[in-house]
């Protein structure tokens, strides 16, 4: 039982990465996804990769999986039909939402009216009321509750959610209605109560999170059950775990119960993969750049810890569940360039050619110029790569990009580079949001590009950010699967504390943290994790009383004992000043406490690459020309598989592998590190 298998199911490909715990060796495999039933694709991949590695599927100890099944259920409205019970007077809670219309002045004219996740006809109210302190104002109208539930049953709802006003303080009424629902619906219809899913203030967000959980539960449940069966057939006996939106793993049983935690499982894989790569490359601070066909995901990793946020954004919905702070921009290889007649400005995206018709260069019917086409025109993506089976249509791409050149009145190459510069700038904008805007200086970070096109753009974007080195990790195309394979188990709990710091006794605080630690450790133990391998971490949210946003501070009980509350507040003031340029005399409020329990941190070492003599010429495929910085330049194309540790490659150069291409700009130099990552730095002035 020495193998870990990471599996990431994307829209086009299912990526697998088989990791040997003992040697650090790994195998990777890509197989087409099977959207009608993704377990088929997974199974194909499992058979292929185990054969290739000569490994018995029974020797896979952990099957670790990132999936967008929950995401898609929400985005495509394919979740279960949820019946919602709310407090009398609040039937339209999901219809009104937060009254927010995105965009600027007059944006309401073009904003499509959203449909609530629980249909309004399936939302009914019940009499009864708690006040803000958790005291009963009016008892539950039991007869009314029963009638409402019977009605929902007749309407054919598949899951029930009960979300009442002030239930975050006292959930007794929800429990009462939940019991009636169990009588009415029997054991087969899942019932979720808002105070159990999310015991937090703000009725809309709590209701939405509970409804989202209920809506995706059956879908995720079926998916996991089906996958489990298939794996057993294939002889995989290991434990099945899923990647949470926050980058930790959870048992598949837990995921079935709380699928709201895996809503952004997909993008989290790349970030956790980046953490593993960074560790092996000796880097601590990383910005990630995951460039796909239609969009780019970016995230920030500080000191090998990715930044997390308390909300998961799925489409227009904002669900309260921890997630990695991944920002997405509509800029990818398929983004379409256009020049609106009115302004004559060059715009790239957010419209995308997608997989079909795709970029012009792919010859699948695409006619509009895309970022990929610009890369082909400039020579950054050589025509005859991808193992020779697939030739890019450079002439077609040129013709398409020429339309942009004509509209702008510039040369073909200038137009193509313009498209690249704009899309890089859009990525830069997203990276700024997670770095500069959060008070981080991007010059203290390296930039890691992965996904299909990340390594093509990483060098140029690193230049904009001043983030060096630009990293093209080993296996950039399957980094998500690598992340699935190399991260650790995680669970967390949060609690409202809501007390002024000056009225808080440090002993009381420590006591609550101890309690929360015990609870979270217990959960991991239930999943079979050895008690002595579990570690706990804590966060305390502090703000100036009256502010809406808290600053989370990492703490432990010993430091609290030693430095007391004042030590905590001093750190808050420092952090607040860094973020917002000022401090205040207002009292501090301790808002929330969070405890995280983590499974064993795996010391999965990457395999060392054979040392070379620094000269990459053995890996050279051919000479090449490309257009960069205003002129045509001679470049060399290398085969990544043949590069050795210590090889140094002056730009401009192109390094190709199975599923990805790394571009080294003309004024930069790439070196191959000990485990095969390509690190790109500005060429030192001679």
């Amino acid at each position, binding site marked *: 039982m020495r193998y870990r298998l990471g599996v990431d199911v994307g829209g086009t490909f299912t990526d697998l990465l088989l990791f040997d715990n003992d040697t650090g060796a790994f195998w990777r495999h890509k197989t087409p996804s099977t959207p009608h039933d993704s377990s088929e694709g997974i199974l194909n991949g499992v058979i292929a990769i185990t054969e290739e590695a000569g490994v018995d599927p029974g020797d896979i100890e952990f099957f670790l999986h990132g999936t967008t099944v929950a995401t898609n259920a929400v985005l495509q409205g394919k979740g279960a039909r949820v019946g919602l019970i709310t407090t009398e007077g609040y039937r339209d809670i999901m219809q009104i939402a937060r009254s927010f219309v995105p965009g600027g002045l007059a944006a309401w*004219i073009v904003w499509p009216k959203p449909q609530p996740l629980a249909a309004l006809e399936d939302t009914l109210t019940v009499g009864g009321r708690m006040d803000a302190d958790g005291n009963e104002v009016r008892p539950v109208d039991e007869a009314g509750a029963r009638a409402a539930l019977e009605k929902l049953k007749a309407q054919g709802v598949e899951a029930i959610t009960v979300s009442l006003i002030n239930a975050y303080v006292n959930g007794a009424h929800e429990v009462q209605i939940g019991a009636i629902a169990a009588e009415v619906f029997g054991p087969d219809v899942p019932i979720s109560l808002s105070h159990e899913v999310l015991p937090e203030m703000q009725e809309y967000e709590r209701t939405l999170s509970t409804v989202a959980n209920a809506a995706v539960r059956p879908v995720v449940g079926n998916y996991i059950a089906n996958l489990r069966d298939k794996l057993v057939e294939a002889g995989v006996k290991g434990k099945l775990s899923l990647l949470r939106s926050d980058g930790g793993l959870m048992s598949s049983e837990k995921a079935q119960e709380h699928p709201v935690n895996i809503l952004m499982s997909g993008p989290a894989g790349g970030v956790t993969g980046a953490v593993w790569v960074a560790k092996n490359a000796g880097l601590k601070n990383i910005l990630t750049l995951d460039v796909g066909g239609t969009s780019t995901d970016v995230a920030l990793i500080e000191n090998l810890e990715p930044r997390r946020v308390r909300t998961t954004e799925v489409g227009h919905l904002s669900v309260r569940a921890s997630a990695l702070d991944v920002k997405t921009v509509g800029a990818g290889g398929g983004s379409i360039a256009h020049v609106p007649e009115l302004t004559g400005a060059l715009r790239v995206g957010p419209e995308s050619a997608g997989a079909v018709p795709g970029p012009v260069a792919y010859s699948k019917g695409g006619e509009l110029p895309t970022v990929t086409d610009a890369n082909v025109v400039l020579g950054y993506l050589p025509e005859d790569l991808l193992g020779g089976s697939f030739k890019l249509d450079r002439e077609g791409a040129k013709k398409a990009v020429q339309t942009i050149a004509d509209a702008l009145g510039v040369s073909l190459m200038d137009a193509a580079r313009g498209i690249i510069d704009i899309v890089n700038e859009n990525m830069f904008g997203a990276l700024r949001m997670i770095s500069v805007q959060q008070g981080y200086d991007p010059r203290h970070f390296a930039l890691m590009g992965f996904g299909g096109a990340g390594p093509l753009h990483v060098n140029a974007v690193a230049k904009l950010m001043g983030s060096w080195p630009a990293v093209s990790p080993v296996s950039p195309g399957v980094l998500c699967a690598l992340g699935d394979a190399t991260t650790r188990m995680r669970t967390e709990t949060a609690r409202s504390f809501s007390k002024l710091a000056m009225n808080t006794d440090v002993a009381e605080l420590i006591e609550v943290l101890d309690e929360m630690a015990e609870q979270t450790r217990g959960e991991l133990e239930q999943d079979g994790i050895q008690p002595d391998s579990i570690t706990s971490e804590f966060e305390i949210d502090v703000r100036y009383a009256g502010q809406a946003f808290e600053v989370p501070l990492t703490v432990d009980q010993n430091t609290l004992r030693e430095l007391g509350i004042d030590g905590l507040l001093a750190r808050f003031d420092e952090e607040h000043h860094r973020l917002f340029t000022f401090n205040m005399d207002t009292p501090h409020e301790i808002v929330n406490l969070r405890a995280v329990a983590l499974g064993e941190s795996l010391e999965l070492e990457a395999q060392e690459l054979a040392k070379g003599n620094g000269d990459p010429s053995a890996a050279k495929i051919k000479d090449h020309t490309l257009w960069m910085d205003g002129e045509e330049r001679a470049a060399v194309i290398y085969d990544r598989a043949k590069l050795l540790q210590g090889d140094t490659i002056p730009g401009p150069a192109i390094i190709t592998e199975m599923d990805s291409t790394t571009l080294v700009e003309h004024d930069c130099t790439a070196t191959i590190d000990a485990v095969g990552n390509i690190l790109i730095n500005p060429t030192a002035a001679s």
Partner: protein
Amino acid sequence: MPAQIIETNTTPFKKLDLDPVTLDIIENALRNARIEMDATLVRTAMSPGIREQGDAFPLIADPSGKMIVGQFGSFIGGFLKSFEGTIEDGDMIFLSDPYSCEGAISHSNDWLVMLPVFKDGRLIAYTAMFGHQSDIGGMVPGSMPIEATSIFQEGVRIPPVKIWKKGEYNDDLMKLVMHQTRKPDWCQADLNALIASCRVASNRLIEMAERFGDDVYYSATQELLARNHRAMKALIGQAIPEAKASFEDFICDDGKGYGPYKIKCTMWREGDKVILDFDGTDPQSAASINFFLNENMFKMFFGIYMIMVFDPQILFNDGFYDLIEVRIPEGSLLKPKFPAALSGRTHALGRIFDILGGLLGQGTPEFLNAAGFSSSPHLFYSGWDNREGKKADWFQLFQIGFGGIPGRPLGDGPDGHSLWPGFTNVPNEFLERYFPLRIERYETEKDSGGAGLHRGGNGIHMTYRFLADGAIGIHDDRWFVPPWGVNGGHPGKRATKLLERVDGTTEIVGNKVEDVEVKAGEQLHFITWGGGGWGDPLERDPELVVLEVRQGLVTIEGAREYGVVMAGDETVDAAATDALRAEMKDGRGELSLFDYGPGIETLRANCKEETGLKAPIQPSWDEQRHG
């Protein structure tokens, strides 16, 4: 005497030719800087108006004061013309007096901070932001007295002053200002937030200039303005006819029993230029519903409505200003003379957008939206918390409500959503936790959205139960003149406010009232207007109408406005529906482009019966006084 700008480096910027890509990159960077201003503000502000609802507006301008990014247009040019003093490195300007900035902010509650950005001794930009303060003193909590007759009753007025002078903080000034408000803690935090936002943006602009070079940065801003000018010129040529077109709408009343007040705008093109003339708008009110409309702000509103359709990615900026001429008669409701009261200006501000929509859309009905912007309903509730266990602490709430979004070419108007950019509602659990309130009801008002092929959004029915004795104030409109429908759509229903007293009686209260005493246990039903309908309601799918009945958005009776008859309460009675629709079609004439309802005189005649309130009295003006 205009402001004197002190630069230690007076080298003029070189105007360079830029490639389009650099230009677009700088455009994006500016957009990001603006987003960062918003983010900084909401994270650090404390008053619910800003931190929960987002009532604040950022701006980045070039050295001459032209807005490069923002949404309300720039006042800086006008400010510089009249500011008697110096602008130096390390200065920061603070102001709140609408009469000192040509109405760039339209009431004294909006505090504005402006930071001149210097790099290497040279002025390269301005950043500015204003936000609504929950209380600035004056005759009522919340500082927006509907009863006011002059601006002196509306709290502290701050002329343009330096909060920072050459890097030195003016502590005494701020002590003086904060002494005037009932909520100095909120004001201080919100002011800090505004300052931090301006500083953050200023840092970004300097970084940008360092990255690209000062001349490139400057040239880019000028080219962005020029690009906007070219785009708008083309657009105006295509879309605005030379023939005059007018549109008018009404503010229901002034809170003192008089109304309605007419706002009229006429538009035509002369060559490249559009004229927007408010001639025919009623004179200023002796009460507080005056709205000091800044001409540049109105140009911006006009431009945004135009641009929205054609290239929504364009950054709005001031580049097109000389293509538009706005004429507002002195002494009118939209350009009142000092010291006219302004605290009820929100209705005319909202109504301006309805007027703009009607004015621009009447030539192209397929792009025309119904009415619904209309107003910005406010509730004030304040007192000493006399609940058991509380220490009679002072509390005061200022809350912004929403009506329904109108029916649109795109489809139905969302129910109970905000037309104001960036605004959100306040979670009711937040209200119940921090104020002596229980929100017994927070639903949309059935049938309030105007019937149409695309239904207008319903307004909101919010029921406040007061848990402590106190006083309330209400600002709302559209209770007398309904929001109009278009292309055959019906008008939306009007706003209502109803108090249920502890003694069991109920009373209709006006939509502009203040100092109404309430006792613990009493309930206020705060019901807002619905959006107007779009298109012929008889064309709406009967199944959809029935679904909305089951959803509680429309009543069985309301379904008949669509000619839909129901069998039981769940399904369509197809035969009866066909018959009713045929009968309704026969009985009506040609569908009109605008449906304003029955007209002012009929509304007046039926007012008491329909609204429970006395009909407003037609105002008359003393020509001598307002000439």
